[in-house]
């Protein structure tokens, strides 16, 4: 068993008993990366020196008898769009290949305050735009279960690194499924909290009304611990919610008796691979045997979610990415004679094809004469999708369906067809448009050996129920215990 397969309580007991040190944990993380990451390329930058120095400090804390944080001693990997002081933060973009942040984002700071050690920054689709990690400006990450396949995206590095057990946990960000979809493709747990639950300060913005940071972990219990540490209102993010943060750990009771589950027919029928559908139906049976009930429901606007999402997310992105101008940070083109040329050349040399495509789409959708037809129309459809959810949540506690229509696809299979690639997101984008919490948990494997993800969606700020259902299911079936063969232990 890898050290990182142990429960947090076991790790903490071993640390207190001096059978283990934080330095040991960090060294195990660094060793795993050095020995095995070449196969999957999930890591962009390892801060070995900084992490070991931090570990020594934490080891001293224990000797001095100081109180230990919730995530004390746990080595973490962060998606490279989270700003980390003193550790290069690139968003997997050539544009930011030299960016050395002078501050920590709120989440980076919070995990450190909880006693966690940031060991490395992880690969992703450039600026979080993509669902396969093929859009990384540096190199693609590969699926640990079969390296001919994509790990998903945009938090593909975070999900692959977790499946490889490089860290105790990783963090990703989810704008249209970017935590849940790679978690499903890599056979790990991925939680997108309610919009506003976790501060976005220091998360390089893609689509501000949709982006949310969340944990990627080996099981639901770990996801609850990490969420506990990173959740909460932040004065530096005016969209962070000023609501109470409940004790998420205490919600993991294993009890789902009387739980009412709605299953949207639009996300379990046509367009969903039969192996994926069967695995999700088996999960529903399992939950039934635990005392839950389920009924088929309808989300009539589902088919409009993907086009609405791409218009809104790209519009917000075109505005957010205007800040990358080659003046204050990032790479500046050296062949510009005037200011406008400097902007144009720096951006054109720094951004990859998918980022440019979305900036173009967003700029067009916001431009004079097209705003009402595209941007406003998509905002109105967003309202209809929110109403679909509200109608179901009037009668049900959670909504359950696959995380993805298929298991992971082959590297290169969809790169030439953006619309086909975008349609992959049908099961995840409605949740972001409505700002709801949702988790992906492993619910079986296809004949190909690739993992399948079950998605559980909750009411706004009801992560507790989402975690409770996911935990009860996971513990009763144990799909999460399976690891790629080459992963140690």
């Amino acid at each position, binding site marked *: 068993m890898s050290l990182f397969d142990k429960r947090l309580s076991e790790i903490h007991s071993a640390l207190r008993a001096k059978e283990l040190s934080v330095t040991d944990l960090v060294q195990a993380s660094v060793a795993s990366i050095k020995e095995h990451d070449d196969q999957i390329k999930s890591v962009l930058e390892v801060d070995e020196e900084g992490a070991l120095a931090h570990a020594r400090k934490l080891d001293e804390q224990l000797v001095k008898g100081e109180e230990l944080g919730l995530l004390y001693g746990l080595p973490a990997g962060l998606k490279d769009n989270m700003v980390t002081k003193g550790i290069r933060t690139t968003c997997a973009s050539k544009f930011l290949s030299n960016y050395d942040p*002078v501050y920590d984002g709120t989440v980076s700071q919070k995990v450190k305050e909880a006693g966690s050690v940031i060991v490395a920054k992880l690969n992703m689709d450039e600026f979080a735009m993509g669902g396969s990690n093929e859009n990384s400006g540096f190199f693609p990450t590969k699926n640990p279960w079969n390296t001919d396949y994509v790990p998903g995206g945009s938090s593909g590095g975070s999900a692959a690194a977790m499946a490889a057990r490089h860290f105790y946990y990783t963090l990703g960000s989810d704008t249209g499924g970017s935590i849940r979809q790679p978690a499903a493709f890599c056979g790990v747990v991925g939680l997108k909290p309610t919009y506003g639950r976790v501060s976005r300060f220091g998360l390089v913005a893609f689509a501000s009304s949709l982006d949310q940071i969340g944990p990627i972990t080996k099981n639901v219990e770990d996801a609850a611990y990490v969420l506990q540490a990173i959740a909460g209102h932040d004065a530096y993010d005016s969209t962070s919610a000023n609501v109470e943060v409940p004790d998420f750990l205490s919600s993991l009771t294993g009890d789902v008796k009387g739980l009412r589950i709605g299953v949207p027919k639009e996300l379990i029928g046509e367009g969903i691979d039969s192996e994926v559908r069967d695995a999700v139906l088996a999960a529903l049976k399992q939950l039934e045997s635990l005392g839950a009930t389920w009924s088929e429901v309808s989300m009539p606007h589902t088919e409009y979610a993907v086009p609405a999402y791409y218009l809104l997310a790209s519009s917000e992105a075109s505005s957010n990415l205007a800040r990358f101008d080659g003046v*204050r940070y990032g790479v500046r083109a050296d062949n510009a004679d005037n200011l406008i040329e400097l902007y144009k050349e720096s951006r054109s040399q720094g951004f990859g094809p998918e980022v440019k495509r979305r900036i*173009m789409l967003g700029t067009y959708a916001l431009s004079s004469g097209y705003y009402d037809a595209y941007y406003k129309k998509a905002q109105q459809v967003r309202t209809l999708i*929110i109403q679909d959810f509200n109608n179901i949540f009037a009668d049900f506690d959670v909504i359950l369906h696959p995380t993805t229509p298929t298991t992971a696809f082959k590297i290169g299979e969809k790169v030439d067809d953006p619309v086909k690639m975008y349609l992959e997101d049908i099961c995840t984008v409605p949740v972001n448009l409505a700002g709801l919490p949702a988790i992906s948990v492993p619910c079986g494997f296809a004949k190909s050996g690739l993992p399948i993800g079950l998605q559980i969606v909750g009411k706004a700020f009801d992560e507790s129920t989402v975690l409770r259902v996911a935990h009860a299911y996971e513990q009763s079936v144990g799909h999460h215990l399976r690891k790629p063969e080459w992963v140690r232990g």
Partner: protein
Amino acid sequence: MSAITRKEVEHVANLARLQLTEEEAERYTKDLNAILDFAAKLNELDTSQVQPTSHATDVKNVMREDVNRPSLPIAEVLKNAPDHEDDQFKVPAVFE
């Protein structure tokens, strides 16, 4: 909705401050047309009576007292700048 032309693509690129190569301009004309065709699906819905949503949660304007707070040292602020001089970001001349 009408298709987007190569000329419009070049106009949009200029607005977005992107310098497209010949190949890119062609590629994005094709891609944007495919994506906008796909987006035209939204027109099947009558939304004349539907309010637009910009944010899913009901956060209103958040105000705070306008008070002085410590800010980053200038050396730190300029640390990542491609070029700077006299504590300022430096860019090519805007006027001749």
